[in-house]
């Protein structure tokens, strides 16, 4: 699979801020990949996401998104059409309080013919499991539903790449699960997914995990490689998942275990085997 995103030595500092928010960040993402990007507060995750959607101009370094050079100003709108971005706060993403109208906003901006739009809205709502909500008011939805409508608003433009910037951090556990299920399903349907988070558990199901720290890529690899490496996680400023923490605690107390569990299911497995 070719690299649909390629970032090389990106450097970015916001005006009025001496600190480099990105400080030589390099990363490639393959087409159809599910990448989880983890880092603590202020590590530069959102700054990177805004680059991938051409919301910020490249200051230094190289960046291609959807095989388009992001440094070419003529590519800005094409890149925004090919990449969809969902943000943290579900209340701050709607232009219309009517679901159907809001979903039509993206396609209209990108010049999709008017007669094609109802079909797109229907497909987008089906993809987030909210069919039939066209005439609902966004003000009356739960947080998780709002966030799924926000995802549908992005899907209506039919992008190949989806970027989720901490989309679950303002949701209750149920809303979080629904949104994460939707994200996983979209990946299965062939979209390239970049899930930004500081909840480490959300990265377990990803194809690959990238750790960002102080605007630099610290490491990237499979969830198992990344999330069971205590030293690496400590340097990133993240707490390991509970099963991993438990494994190391038990080991330091002298209990020999056959493998390090990553999820609760694996932990159960392990405990059953001990018995």
């Amino acid at each position, binding site marked *: 699979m070719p690299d649909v995103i390629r970032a090389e030595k990106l450097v970015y500092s916001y005006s009025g801020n001496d600190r480099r928010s990105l400080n030589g960040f390099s990363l490639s993402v393959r087409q159809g990949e599910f990448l989880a990007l983890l880092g603590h507060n202020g590590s530069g995750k959102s700054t990177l996401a805004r680059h991938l959607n051409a919301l910020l101009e490249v200051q230094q370094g190289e960046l291609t998104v959807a095989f388009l050079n992001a440094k070419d100003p003529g590519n800005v709108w094409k890149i925004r059409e090919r990449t969809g*971005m969902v*943000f943290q706060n579900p*209340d701050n*993403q709607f*232009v219309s309080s009517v679901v159907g109208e809001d979903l039509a906003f993206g396609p209209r*901006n990108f010049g999709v013919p008017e007669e094609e739009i109802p079909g797109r809205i229907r497909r987008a709502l089906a993809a987030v499991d909210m069919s039939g909500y066209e005439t609902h008011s966004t003000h009356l939805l739960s947080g998780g539903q709002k966030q799924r409508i926000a995802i549908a608003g*992005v899907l209506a*433009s039919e992008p190949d790449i989806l970027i989720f910037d901490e989309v679950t951090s303002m949701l209750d556990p149920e809303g979080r699960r629904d949104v994460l299920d939707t994200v996983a399903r979209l990946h299965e349907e062939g979209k390239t997914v970049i899930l930004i988070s500081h909840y480490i558990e959300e990265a377990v199901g990803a194809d690959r995990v990238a750790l960002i720290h102080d605007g630099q890529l610290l490491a990237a690899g499979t969830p198992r490689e990344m999330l069971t490496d205590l030293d690496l996680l400590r340097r990133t400023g993240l707490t390991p998942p509970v099963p991993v923490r438990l494994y190391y605690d038990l080991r330091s107390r002298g209990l020999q275990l056959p493998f390090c569990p990553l999820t609760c299911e694996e932990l159960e497995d392990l405990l059953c085997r001990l018995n």
Partner: protein
Amino acid sequence: MRQLPVGLYQPADSVIHRLSGSAKLLCMLLLLIGVVNTTTLPGYGIWVLLTALLIRLARISPGTALGSAVRLKWFFGVILFMNLCFYQPEDPWVRWWIFSPSYAGLIQGIQVVARVFLLLAMSNVLMVSTAPLVMTDAMERLLSPLRLIGVPAGLIAMILSVAIQFIPTLFEETDNIRKAQTARGARFDSPRLWDKAKAVLPLLVPVFLAAFKRADELSMAMEARGYRGDTQSRKKKYPPFQTADWLALLLCAAVAAAFVMIR
């Protein structure tokens, strides 16, 4: 279910819902001209009937249509009182301290209240029967002649529409912050004005900061979804007026003209 904020679009299939947004907006302006030119009691009677008819035609409940006007009852009371006591000090019933209530003042007060009430009810019919972005397009269309003198019609329309839709969210947020600060000892319901003011001021700061943050995030989300503001390269095509639109305009123009001429 939370109570639906008044003035929010409610989808339905009615004659009024089906009219084009810009026709509805123009009709509203015409009716406004008619209302402010009404000076007789029978005239107001006709307006009450017309408004009731509009509410019926739009198939919305009277509560929804009149809710925001009813909620302003204190404001109406103050207007009535001010007009009654200060409108015509030359020929009062009685004179007491600075107050000089008069017959002319009473009539004037009732007129102002009636006009504001009617306009609120009619604009509610407009808002409830028109989807937000349809309204945005309508405003943009009516403002578009101003483009010739460099007014960014599309931007103004979008800003107005987004601002209106943010009102319920901001109310909710204010309420949340108020609760949080009450829990920490702020005294919003203290009878002493000074305590009240001390409680309200720290409330305003986070509400404003939150509003700015919201605006910032929303603008980013809109850009990400391809919004280009007024420089939108593609020329927008507005749907042409249908027979019903022309008919509505004609009726409203006739009503407005009648009231202007009677006066």
